[in-house]
């Protein structure tokens, strides 16, 4: 039995790695294994969690205002009071790629619909029905998921544009986010490139407060009250109907 098959030894080495005493060649070998052995990564994460209270117990110290200003400057955030173009304010919370796709869907879809069903003077019945449409992006900004549902419907159509890895025993879970970013659970998503989700209530009830939609990875069979992991998809939730 080699060291990396002995769980107690693996855990101690993970502790040495997390604390920093595992050095030199041993550290490099451990790091190589870390990249392909989830159990080692979990052991390191466990040590980090065990020791973190030692950091959280330290009395807080307020940073100088200059530190935040330096961060803003380095990241190119607008200075307080600076004029931000209206379109940037509108688009800020969503990844650029997803928004690009959203705009494309918004502009092209009606045109394509009209091309198939008649010209601009075609009767009102050719217009899209009142619907919720969400175009969700991946963390890197690429478009990932298109979610749509009739306003009064109970079925949500989901088209996967880009897949994300979902570990065994886990599922993708759909969330509705209100204007404050508070997440409300909707339902787990079935697996597949084009799937349908049945809602227990009309979309208008489920998505009444939705400003954005997001998807996290959750344990299979769970009913989470809030996301237990980072969102893997997120984007604006559009309400495709005329507001009187």
């Amino acid at each position, binding site marked *: 039995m080699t060291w990396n098959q002995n769980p107690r030894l693996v855990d101690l080495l993970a502790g040495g790695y997390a604390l920093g*005493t595992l050095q030199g060649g041993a550290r490099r070998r451990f790091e190589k294994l870390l990249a392909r052995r989830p159990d080692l990564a979990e052991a390191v994460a466990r040590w980090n969690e065990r020791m*973190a209270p030692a950091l959280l117990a330290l009395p807080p110290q307020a940073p100088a205002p200059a530190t935040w200003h330096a961060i803003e400057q380095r990241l190119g955030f607008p200075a307080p009071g600076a004029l931000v173009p209206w379109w940037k304010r509108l688009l800020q919370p969503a990844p650029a790629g997803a928004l690009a796709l959203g705009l494309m869907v918004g502009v092209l879809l009606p045109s394509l619909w009209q091309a198939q069903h008649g010209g601009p003077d075609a009767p009102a019945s050719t217009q899209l029905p009142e619907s919720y449409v969400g175009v969700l992006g991946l963390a890197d900004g690429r478009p990932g998921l298109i979610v749509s549902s009739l306003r009064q419907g109970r079925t949500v159509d989901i088209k996967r544009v880009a897949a994300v890895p979902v570990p065994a025993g886990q599922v993708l879970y759909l969330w509705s986010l209100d204007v404050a970013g508070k997440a409300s659970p909707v339902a787990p998503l079935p697996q597949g490139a084009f799937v349908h989700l049945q809602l227990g209530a009309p979309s208008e009830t489920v998505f009444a407060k939705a400003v954005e939609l997001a998807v996290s990875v959750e344990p299979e069979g769970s009913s989470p009250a809030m996301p237990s992991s980072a969102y893997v998809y997120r984007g604006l939730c559009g309400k495709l109907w005329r507001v009187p």
Partner: protein
Amino acid sequence: MTAAALPADELPDAVAQLLSRVVLRDTSAFQRLYQLVASRLLAVAVRVVQDRALAEDVLQEVFVHLWNRPQTGAPGQALSLSWLCVVTRNRAIDALRKRRPETPLHWRDADGEEQVHDAAAEGGSPLELLLAEEDGSRLGRCMGQIDSEPRSALLLVYYEGLTHAELAQRLARPLGTVKAWMRRSLARLRDCMESCA
């Protein structure tokens, strides 16, 4: 940027939610996250580097990196307040290592007085701080079961990122002794914390 208060028990959930939004490039979540955790992360950086200006630089690096590459460096670990503290500690240790050649850990000053790079923690010893914290009490209790010298060694390693060799030099103990202390301390800590879980 002013700090915004939040009850301590609500902080971890709030931070986890904000981090998940930061991953998706939400600037308002990023700002709010800074308001909530910057003072805690600065405390971590100050404890490690023991230099306020350098600690502020570390804090800046942590947040710039968080915005630019929020999903890196956490294999197997959820994005959380604990993770942010660990990231800050590791960055602070990197900063300290870069600076160490010009700042020895142990030296004699111009008057011949022996000096050690180890500022006293504000508001009590690390163990006292841990025992006072609800979340840290389990770690504090388990730390309390480790003998005094090995425990100090473990905390020096954790707070200052000392290697075995640096630890042996700092504590004026043989290298083999401090290695054995660390090995035994980690094993005792793990067994204690698992039995408490």
